[in-house]
Structure formats: C-alpha cells, structure tokens
C-alpha cells in the first residue's frame, strides 16, 4: 500500500489539505458560515437601536435589540474559539503527519547523503521549518472561504445601506491588490535566503558541537566564533530585509484601509449636512465599514502565511529530494533466507570526484568461511566490507550473496541475512536490554520488547553478554542498583542471605578492599551523615539532602558539639574544591571525587568568595546550611581535597552513640539502623552484600571482588536475577554512561544474538582490551566458524592466523590473498606488514 504513495518530498503543499481530515474541514466551514452571520447581525441591531428604539423612545424595543446584540456577540466569540480549536486540530495533525513522513524518508536516504548533511540541519528542517506549513493546512479551507464570504456579506450590506458610499469604500481594494503581491514577492525572496542561511547555520552549530573536543583541544574558540558570527551577521541582515518587506505589506494594507473612513467622512458628512443621509445610517455605515477591515486583514494574513509556508515547505522538501538506494521491503515475496556464500566479481566503487576507492576486487567465500581484510588505513578494506553489507552502493561489478546481487536486494533481505558491526557502533538511549535486542527487534519489525515469541529469551541474552565479555559489567550495573522497598522485599531478604554467605566465605580475603559497617569504627568510605545516623532513613526528612534543614537533627548537632566543627570543615571543603575545580567544565572525570556536584559548583563558588570576606558566624543562615550539607556529604576515603581531622572523627563517633539513644527514644520509626540482619534500602545491592563499602577502583581488586560476588550469587541462585536488573541500566544518550569498550561489546552482542548467516565486522574489537579481544576472536574461531560466513576488517595482525583467507589490501585493490601460512611463506605484502614494521623501529 505504501509503495504506491508518492514519496513525501514530491508532494505539494496543497496535497496535505486534501489528505487532512475532510469531515473536520467541512464542519469548520459550516461553523464559519454561522459565524459570518453572527458578525453581521450586530450591525443591523446597532442601526435599529438608534433609528427605531432611541428615536421612537421604545424601551421594549431597546431591550429586545440589545438582547439580540448581546446574543450575537456571545455567539460570535464562542464560534471564533471553536474555529481556532478546529484549525489547530487540523493543522497540528497535518504537521505531525508531515514530520513523520519526512523523518521516515530521511532515515532511508543513502549514507552518502549524510556525509554532507549536518544533524543540526535535519533537526531544524523537522522541527522549525515545517511548523508554518502545518499552520497553513489548518487555515487553508476555513479562513479564505470565511473571509471572502464575510467580505462579500459586508460589502453587500454596505451597498444596501448606501451604494455611493459603498462604491467609494470598495474602490481602494483593487489598488491594494496591485501593490501587495509585488511586495510579497520581495519578502519571499528574502525568506528563501533566510531558510538557506538558517540551514547552513544549523549545520555549522551541529558541526561545532560534535567537534567540541577538537575545539577545546586546539583552543580554537576564536576561529569558530568568528565563523559563526559572520553567519549570524548575514542572517541578521537577511532577516531585517525580510521583516521590512513583511511589515511594508502590513503598512500598505493599513494605510489604504485607514484611507477609506476618510473618504466616507468627507462624502457622508457632506450628504448628512445637506440632509440627504440620516445620522443613524451614517453611524451604521461607518461601523460596518470598520468591520470590513477584519476579514480583509485575515485574508492578507492568510496570504502571508501561505507564501511563507510554501517557501519553507518547498525549500525543505527540495533539500531532501533524494531517493533511497534500496527498497525497504521486497515487493511481492517473503524476505530471502540466503545461504552464506559470497562472490565478489570485478567490484569497483567510485567516490565523488572520480576517486576509485575500490578497483577490480575479486573474491569468493563458501558458506561458513572466514576472511580477514588487512592493510593500511585508506586501503579500502572498510569500504569493501560496507559494499558487501549494502551500506554503500557499488558503482561497478557484482557482489553476490547466496547467488543474489546485493545491489538488487531490499533492506529487509539484507538484515535477514547479514549482521554488521561497524567501527564506531552506535548505542541508543534506553536500557542495556533495549540495545542488545535492537538488531533482533529490527529484524522482526516489532518496536516493543517481548511482543513476539521469536524474540531472544533471557538465557539467550545472558549468553550473548557472556560471549562478548560484557557480562560482568552488566552484573556490576545490577549490583549498583538501589532496590525500592515496595517492589523488592522478596529479593531484599534473599540478598541478606547472600550477605551471610559472603561473610562466611570471603570477609577475610577481601578485608583490604572493603570497609565493613562497624558500629564502633569510623567509616572512611561512607559520608559523614551516614557515619552519624548509621542507618537508612525511612522518612524523607532524614534523607541526606534534608538533614541540613532538619530541626531535630540540627538540635542534635548542637548538643553533640558538632555544629561548629562541621561548619569549619564544610568551609574548608568548599574553599579547596572550588580552588581545584573552579574553572573546569562539568565533566564526570572531574566531579567523581568531589563532594560538590557539577550543577552545584557555581553556588559554592560564590559562597567561597563570601567566605574569603567574612567570618563563619557572619554568614547568612542559607550559607551555613549549604556548608553543613557539604560537610555531611563528605566521604573521607574519596574526597581527598581535605583531610579528616582526628578530633572531628572522635566527636562523630561519640555523636553516633548519642544520636542512636536520642532517636530511639524520640522517633524510633524514622530510621533503620545498619544491622547484619536487615536489608539497607538506601544502599546499593553490592553494599548490602558487603554490608559495607568498597574502598577501591583498582581493576585487580575489582576482579577479585567480582569473582567472589559471582560465586556467592551462583550459590544462592541469584546471578541471573541481578544480571536481569543490570540489563535495565539506562545507558544514557548515545550510551555516554558506558565506556568505549562496553559500547563495542554491546554492538557485537547485538549481532551475535541475531546469529546472521553472514557476519561483517569492521574493526569491531578495536576499543577492547587484550583479553576481551582474544575472547571474541576465539569465539569466532570455534562457535561461528562454519556457521556464519565472516568478513572481518582487522587492524591488529596478531589475531588473523586462524582465518581461512587473508586479503591484503592496498590502494583499493587486493594485493594478495591466501592463508596466513602461505602468505608468510611467500614473504610478500603480509610479511612486510608484520615484520617490516618491526625492522623500521
């Protein structure tokens, strides 16, 4: 059904009116007609009130006419509102349809298109430029019809009142009709330039933002600023011109419309003085004449919206007017299930400018065979992989996948048979799980998880996590989750059991890496607040953020002689942290070890300046609260910018005992104290298993910890549960909460889970550490060999020995191809790549 539709970029703006909800449009028209009548009625009433009611002194008539007048005004207002509602509905619907259709179209455009297109531009096109078109569709039927009808109604009424005056009034409109289009034409030209400049501008902004590292790295702020400023200045000039023309359209219109009362006053006044026109008629005429301006104004406004919208619409659609290189779905058959043989014959790929990126490539792979592509960067190995994977459309020769020409396959055929892992895999916002099943979900055409039985099971997913070596990372995400009391009571009690087992089996071994919660000792890896209350809050007023304003707690601090030392400590923390971090950008690296969060830094910066000028006891209560809060967040083992004064440590230990006595007496429900038999809901699962806090970020220690945790989780049969929780971890926008290696592993897991006939890996393991790389390589050697045909672009030469074939590429050609041993024995290009490099250093 979709295939017969015209592509969105070929559609005209008026076609959207036809495809809008015509029933709504008809309803709109009907309401508008009634509204026109409701607008004319007051004029007649006005005349009758003066001519009949007042002149004849008929109170009854006055009430009747005034009542009708009021009713007409109320109806007109109500209808006007209804009209806006309907227009809005129709317009927004059309806008939403346009945005969807254009986005769907843009995503299918060839990769080449995106090389020259900045993301900012696509955003601007979809978000801003189309808005006026939606507006237009909403107005398109109702407004012009209504305005013209009203115009005629008023004009007819005027003629009926006084043909001579009406003739004078209406004579101005032909003049306007001659002048306006000329002005509008100029405005349109400026508008086109504005759209183009805005487009370059948004492209420029997009470029600067995505290249921000380079800009910081080179300190090239000034260069970038001046580029941007120039464009803004250009846009500024264009916008001024555009607006001037728009205003002049309005001004000309206004001028002529204001001219007509002048004519009426002169002629009508003369007639009235001469007694040839009664006063009531003149008043009625003048107010009717004023009213005629309204529909005219609306008509002109509509004209401007139409002009603006069509310029923007055309410009936007023209830009994206390219066709996808491949059909999305096969026309009249199910997607192919191809066997994994690959045959490349005389393949060439010409880039723009006639550069041959690939030239005369020939190779063939039987199903299940594995090919490694090696060579210097720029030799064409990635391009070859991408041509086979249909990411680029080759310009000459053939690529046959299971006997079918790849260029003729639809996208769906390709995703059914090929799994592609790119050099810089993309991670999408969402959970780990969303990202793992991404390829499978795309293949099955379902955007919801669990919609189909064919989706991978939890076991499959876990297996893929293990194969790619991201299992432990995901387990960590799970372990770092804070459970919610209402949802997880069952799990919580199981974790307390894990805690017991952990204590029996690993406490001694891990004592150096973990600080256990101990009522009699100061906890260096917990914050001061936790050290004092030594429990997790059950009420909001005792949460970390609220403690500093909790009156009960503040009284306790006074009683325990802690207020002053904590304030002093807070001040020290504030001064030191601001001194170190004051001018740094809000990046995670800089704030991981800071008690001040990135978003709080400015506040504390100002506080630090005030601290330099004033004594502590002169500070405002708000400042004191901020300092106290800072001191309570202080974790001595992590926030190393300030030492932990030993006197404070002792006071806190004393305070802990005192607080426990007080709160157990005054408000026993407010807290749950840390005790080995209770789950602590304010802490992560890991800290609950430890019943303490980890002291280290040292990878070796983490490995030991992970091993012991995994062991106890297996023994208690909780490993899968925790990993399942970990799979709900939100990876952040573009996966920025994951490391480069983790993102790559996810991308591989995603494709492994799909288990395609043909695997194409374009330097898919380049960001991985040695061990993970070796693990994935051995998996390819054992599990996938013979199962899936593999083309791997390989950067490291020490992992290629086990491939069936190795092709060494140079300048877009295959220099030599064969098994590892043959090529080494030949002492040709591969030999040179491996050993030649050694000799030169």
């Amino acid at each position, binding site marked *: 059904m979709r295939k017969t539709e015209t592509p969105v970029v070929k559609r005209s703006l008026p076609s959207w009116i036809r495809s809008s909800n015509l029933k709504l449009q008809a309803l709109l028209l009907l309401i508008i007609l009634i509204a026109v009548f409701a607008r004319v009625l007051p004029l007649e009433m006005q005349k009758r009130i003066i001519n009949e009611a007042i002149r004849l002194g008929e109170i009854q008539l006055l009430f009747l006419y005034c009542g009708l007048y009021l009713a007409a005004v109320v109806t007109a207002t109500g209808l006007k509102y209804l009209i806006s509602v309907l227009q809005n509905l129709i317009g927004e619907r059309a806008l939403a349809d346009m945005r969807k259709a254009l986005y769907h179209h843009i995503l299918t455009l060839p990769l080449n298109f995106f090389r020259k297109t900045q993301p900012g531009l696509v955003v601007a096109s979809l978000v801003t430029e189309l808005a006026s078109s939606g507006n237009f569709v909403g107005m398109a039927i109702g407004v012009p019809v209504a305005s013209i009808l009203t115009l005629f109604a008023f004009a007819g009424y005027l003629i009926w009142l006084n043909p001579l005056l009406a003739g004078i009034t209406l004579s101005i409109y032909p003049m306007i009709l001659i002048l306006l289009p000329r002005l509008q034409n100029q405005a349109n030209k400026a508008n086109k330039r504005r759209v183009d400049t805005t487009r370059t501008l948004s492209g420029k902004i997009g470029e600067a933002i995505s290249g921000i590292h380079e800009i910081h*790295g080179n*300190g090239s702020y000034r260069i970038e600023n001046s580029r941007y400023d120039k464009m803004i200045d250009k846009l500024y000039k264009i916008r001024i011109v555009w607006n001037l023309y728009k205003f002049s359209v309005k001004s000309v219109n206004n001028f002529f419309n204001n001219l007509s009362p002048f004519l009426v006053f002169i002629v009508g006044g003369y007639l009235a003085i001469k007694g040839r026109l009664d006063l009531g008629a003149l008043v009625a005429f003048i107010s009717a004449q004023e009213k005629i301006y309204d529909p005219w104004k609306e008509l002109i406004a509509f004209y401007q919206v139409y002009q603006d919208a069509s310029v923007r619409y055309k410009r936007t659609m023209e830009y994206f007017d390219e066709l996808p290189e491949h059909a999305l779905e096969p026309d009249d058959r199910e997607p192919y299930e191809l066997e994994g043989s690959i045959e490349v014959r005389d393949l060439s790929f010409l880039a723009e400018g006639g550069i041959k990126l690939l030239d005369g490539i020939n190779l063939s792979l039987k199903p299940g065979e594995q090919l490694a592509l090696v060579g210097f960067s720029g030799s064409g190995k990635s391009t070859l992989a991408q041509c086979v994977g249909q990411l680029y459309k080759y310009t000459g020769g053939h690529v046959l996948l299971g006997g079918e020409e790849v260029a003729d396959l639809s996208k769906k055929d390709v995703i059914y048979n090929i799994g592609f892992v790119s050099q810089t895999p993309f991670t999408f916002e969402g959970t780990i799980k969303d990202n793992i099943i991404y390829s499978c979900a795309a293949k099955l055409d379902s955007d919801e998880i669990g919609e189909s039985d064919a989706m991978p099971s939890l076991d499959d997913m876990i297996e893929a996590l293990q194969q790619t070596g991201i299992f432990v990372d995901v387990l960590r995400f799970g372990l770092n989750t804070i459970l919610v009391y209402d949802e997880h009571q069952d799990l919580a009690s199981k974790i307390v059991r894990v805690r017991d087992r952990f204590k029996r089996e690993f406490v001694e071994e891990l004592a150096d890496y973990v600080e256990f919660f101990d009522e009699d000792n100061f906890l260096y890896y917990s914050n001061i607040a936790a050290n004092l209350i030594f429990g997790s809050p059950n009420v909001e007023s005792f949460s970390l953020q609220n403690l500093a304003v909790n009156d009960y707690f503040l009284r306790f601090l006074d009683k325990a002689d802690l207020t002053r030392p904590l304030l002093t400590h807070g001040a020290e923390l504030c001064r030191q942290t601001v*001194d170190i971090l004051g001018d740094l*950008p809000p990046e995670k690296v800089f704030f991981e070890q800071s008690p001040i969060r990135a978003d709080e830094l400015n506040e504390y910066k100002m506080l630090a300046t005030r601290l330099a000028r004033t004594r502590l006891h002169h500070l405002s209560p708000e400042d004191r609260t901020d300092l106290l809060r800072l001191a309570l967040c202080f974790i*001595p083992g992590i926030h190393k*910018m300030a030492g932990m004064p030993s006197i404070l440590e002792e006071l806190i230990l004393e305070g802990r005992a005192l607080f426990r006595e007080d709160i157990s007496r005054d408000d026993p429900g407010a807290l749950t104290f840390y005790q080995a038999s209770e789950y602590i809901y304010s802490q992560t699962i890991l800290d609950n298993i430890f019943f303490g806090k980890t002291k280290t970020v*040292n990878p070796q220690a983490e490995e030991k910890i992970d091993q012991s945790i995994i062991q106890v989780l297996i023994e208690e049969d909780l490993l899968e549960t925790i990993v399942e929780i970990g799979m709900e971890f939100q990876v952040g926008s573009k996966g920025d909460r994951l490391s480069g290696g983790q993102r790559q592993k996810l991308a591989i897991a995603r494709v492994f889970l799909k288990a395609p006939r043909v695997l194409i890996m374009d330097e898919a393991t380049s960001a991985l550490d040695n061990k993970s790389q070796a693990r994935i390589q051995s998996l390819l050697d054992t599990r996938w060999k013979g199962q899936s045909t593999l083309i791997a672009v390989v950067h490291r030469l020490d992992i290629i020995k086990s491939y069936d074939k190795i092709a060494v590429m140079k300048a877009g050609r295959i220099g030599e191809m064969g098994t590892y041993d043959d090529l080494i024995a030949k002492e040709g290009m591969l030999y040179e790549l491996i050993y030649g490099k050694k000799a030169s250093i």
Partner: protein
Amino acid sequence: MNSSMEKRQASDTSEFQENLEILRRIDFFSALSLQALKVFAYLFTREIYKPGDYLFHQNDNDGNAFYILSGTAEVVRKDERGEFCLGKYGEGEFLGGLALLGDMRRLFFLKAVTDMTCLVMSREKFAKAIEQFPDLMPRVLGTMVDRIRSWEERLFIDQDGLCDTCKKKVGVSLI
C-alpha cells in the same frame, strides 16, 4: 601497612596536599603551572597492590601512569622464549608517562613484588585535564623529549655495559 593507611586517613593534612608535594618533584609534571598541578594532584588516586598483583599486562593498552609511594615492582617480559625479569622499580619512581600521551601497548608486565601503594593516573583523566590547559601540552612534550634524550645519553656514559649487538641498535633519540 593497612594500619598505617588508616592512620593517614585521619590526619589533618589532606591526601591532595601530599600528592601536590609529590608531583612537584616529578619532572614529567614539573613544567606545569600551579593551577594545572592542583588538578592533576586531585585526579591521582591511591591504589594498593599485593605481591603478585599486576600493575599492567603485556600487550594491554591500559594507559596508566604510576608513582610508587611504597614497595617494589618488577618488569617481566614473556614471549616464545620464556619469561624474563628485566628490572625493578621502587619507592619514589614515576613510570608510564609516555602511556599518558598516546596509545602504548605494553611491551612487558609490571608486577608487584611486595605490598605496594601507588598514585595512579589514567590516560583518559590526563587527556581531559590537559584539555583544560592547552598551552601546557608543548611543555609536557618538551620534557618528554628531554627525558628520552638524557636516557640515551646515560646509556652512552656507561657504555661499557653494552654488548656489541646492542650498540648497533641504539638511537631511540633519533625517532
């Protein structure tokens, strides 16, 4: 050692201050301004290693630099011919500055012989921090070049220890 660590934690001078003092003595960082030095002192973390722990593995591209606060580590290389101990490093030595500057696939293992405490800096942190002080990069590179040159110069001063084949392969400073 553990108890000494605990004692240090409850002290009135901060670890940050101690790190700052140490960094001022390491020539790799000596060219930095005080403000930059403060950021680096803040970003260095303390790690403990037990005998047999690896600070890094051969072939890994870990990108860490280490300052040894206490203890000893040995350099071990493993290849087809076996396992060789190539030397030892101890208290007060700074290792791996080059790994901070760019990809450095390790040519050997660094393994703790005794209990060790080190200050550790990762390449990622270093890169983020040096980004904030772009004018310092040339100076850091200058120091590095100078270090490589004087390393080879020292080699010639005690030339007697060099074997004949080794002599033919000198020339690191010519890279």
